[in-house]
Structure formats: structure tokens, C-alpha cells
């Protein structure tokens, strides 16, 4: 079968599978500074040629939900057409004093903390709307945190498919194996969102998981 016919054939099957009116909304979830926006930027740069949001080394840079509509990725002639929902990092605590070490004034730090609390509430609310999730985990940190456990528990309870993205594998202290060993029942894809390393594996996993 010619390539374009095969592609249309697969797309039609895919559309039937997900239902015509059902729009895929893939949420990027995880801790603050796990690299969600860096990954969202890598994906939109790869497939749309433009970034989605600002990144920073200061935690809670993303304090509201950003949405990029109609991103199309293609793997093995299968297209995945979806919206990216980049959410603020989820945490159980926010201390404005932690922002002071990044050079923010006390006023700026307090303002950032207040906005961050609202962002976390918004991120949790979006769990009702996403149809798939990339759980972005910093591979240099302990993955067994309450935020990750809560996110995964809610995704499982709501039957929302998800892929665990073990990010920052370019750093020497990173260990994707630690994440795989803690969550052996889930799909874990090691990547470096910053350098675009292994993103092909991630797109393949997304096509398989979210189809």
C-alpha cells in the first residue's frame, strides 16, 4: 500500500478508536523544576517550530496552565494529534524563603509563592480534563515523593493513560534505573528534554500509549 494511503488508513482507524469528537489533551505533570516546560518546548519546537513557555532555574516558573493546541507528532507513519497542557509543578509546600537564594526580593518571592499556590490548584483541577499524561520526573532526585504518588494514584483511579518521563539523563547524577525499579509496572522513558536526547523513544511511547 502506498505510504500516504497507509497513513490515511491508520489515521482513520485512530480517529475511530478515539472517537471523532474526542480531543486528545496531553498534560505535562510533575514536580517544580522537573523539566515540564523544557519538554513542552522541545516537543513544540520539534513539531511546530516554536516554544510554548519560559523556563528558569527558579522553581515554580510556570505558575499557570499553558496550552498549545493541535500538535501533531508522527512515528512509524502513525500520527498523534493533540493539545499540550503544560501545568505548574505540584508540591505539598511552598516557602517563599526558598526563592530568596535565587536573587528575588522578599516581595517578589512572596508574590511568586502566592501565585504558585494558585498554580498548583489549577494543575490539580486539570486532572479532570486531560486524556493522557506525561509525568515528568527529575532523574537526579528520589522519585518516591508524595506529589508523584498522588498524581499517579489519581491517574490510575481515573484510568488516564500515562508515561513516566525520566528527565535530565544528561546529568551525571541521574539514574533512570532508580525510577524504573520503583515503578516497574509503568512505562518509563529516559530522556534529556534540554538536549533532545531520546525524544524519539518518547514519541514512540506516546503514540503507543495514547492511541
Amino acid at each position, binding site marked *: 500500500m502506498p505510504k500516504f494511503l497507509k497513513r490515511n488508513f491508520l489515521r482513520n482507524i485512530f480517529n475511530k478508536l478515539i472517537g471523532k469528537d474526542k480531543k486528545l489533551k496531553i498534560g505535562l505533570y510533575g514536580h517544580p523544576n522537573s523539566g515540564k516546560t523544557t519538554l513542552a518546548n522541545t516537543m513544540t519546537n520539534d513539531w511546530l517550530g516554536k516554544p510554548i513557555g519560559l523556563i528558569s532555574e527558579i522553581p515554580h516558573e510556570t505558575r499557570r496552565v499553558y496550552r498549545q493546541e493541535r500538535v501533531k507528532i508522527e512515528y512509524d507513519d502513525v500520527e498523534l494529534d493533540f493539545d499540550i497542557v503544560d501545568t505548574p509543578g505540584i508540591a505539598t*509546600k511552598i516557602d517563599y524563603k526558598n526563592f530568596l537564594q535565587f536573587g528575588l526580593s522578599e516581595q517578589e518571592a512572596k508574590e511568586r509563592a502566592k501565585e504558585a499556590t494558585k498554580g498548583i490548584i489549577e494543575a490539580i483541577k486539570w486532572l479532570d480534563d486531560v486524556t493522557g499524561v506525561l509525568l515528568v520526573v527529575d532523574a537526579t532526585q528520589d522519585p518516591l515523593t508524595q506529589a508523584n504518588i498522588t498524581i499517579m494514584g*489519581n491517574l490510575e483511579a481515573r484510568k488516564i493513560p500515562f508515561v513516566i518521563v525520566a528527565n535530565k539523563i544528561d546529568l551525571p547524577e541521574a539514574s533512570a534505573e532508580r525510577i524504573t525499579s520503583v515503578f516497574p509496572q509503568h512505562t518509563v522513558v529516559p530522556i534529556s528534554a534540554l538536549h533532545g536526547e531520546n525524544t524519539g523513544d518518547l514519541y514512540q511511547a506516546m503514540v503507543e500509549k495514547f492511541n
Partner: protein
Amino acid sequence: MDSSDTNALKMDFVSSEALKESSSMEKISMIVDKVKEGDLLVIEGGLTPAEEAELIETTMREIDIENFVGIDIYTLEKDKSSFFGLSKKKAIGITIIGPANVMKTVKKRENFLSMIANLGDSGASLH
């Protein structure tokens, strides 16, 4: 806890029986109220994922930047046999919830949790 007694840590141990009749909202209100007062809660069993998300949401609404900076939650799991013992699943044995500025250092290994509480100028160790 008496606010003048800054070097004391109040710990409440709550059995699963005590929470059995409580609604999710009642459980979360009780937890947040106690933790905001500086108490450490040890609960038999755990919260459902929806309750955990609701607890984080409520905590974010209650953070006042100056006095209450949020919570820390840790759980210890236990093996739970089901289907006549044929399959084994992990279930939450106990849940420890406290103010984030008090639960300073927590080390967790399988079947073991160690916490150092930071109480003003002094410290208390719990194992």
C-alpha cells in the same frame, strides 16, 4: 498545641476506626486544622488518591506565606494479600502528616521511616 510552647511537638495518633465514619471533607479539614496548629498526625491507613489531591488543594488555599508553608506527607506500606492470598498488593499501613517547617529531615526505606523534627532552636528525633 500551646503557641507559647515552641519547643514542644504534639503528636496525634488516629486509628482507622476513628476515621471510618468521616467523610473525605471531614478528614481533610481535621488534618489541615491540626497541622496548621503545628501538630504531627499519625494515621492508621491512608487517604484515597482523590483525598490526597483534595488535601494538597486545601493546603494550597491555607498557605499564608508567613506562618503556614504547607505540609509533608509520608507513608509506610505493608503487604496486603487478596483473592484468598493468591496475589499480594501493597497497602498503606500508616500515614504521617505534619507541618513542612517542622518535618525537616525524613529518611525513608522499606519498612522504616526516620524523621527529625525541627522545633525552633531545639530538635526532636522520631524513629
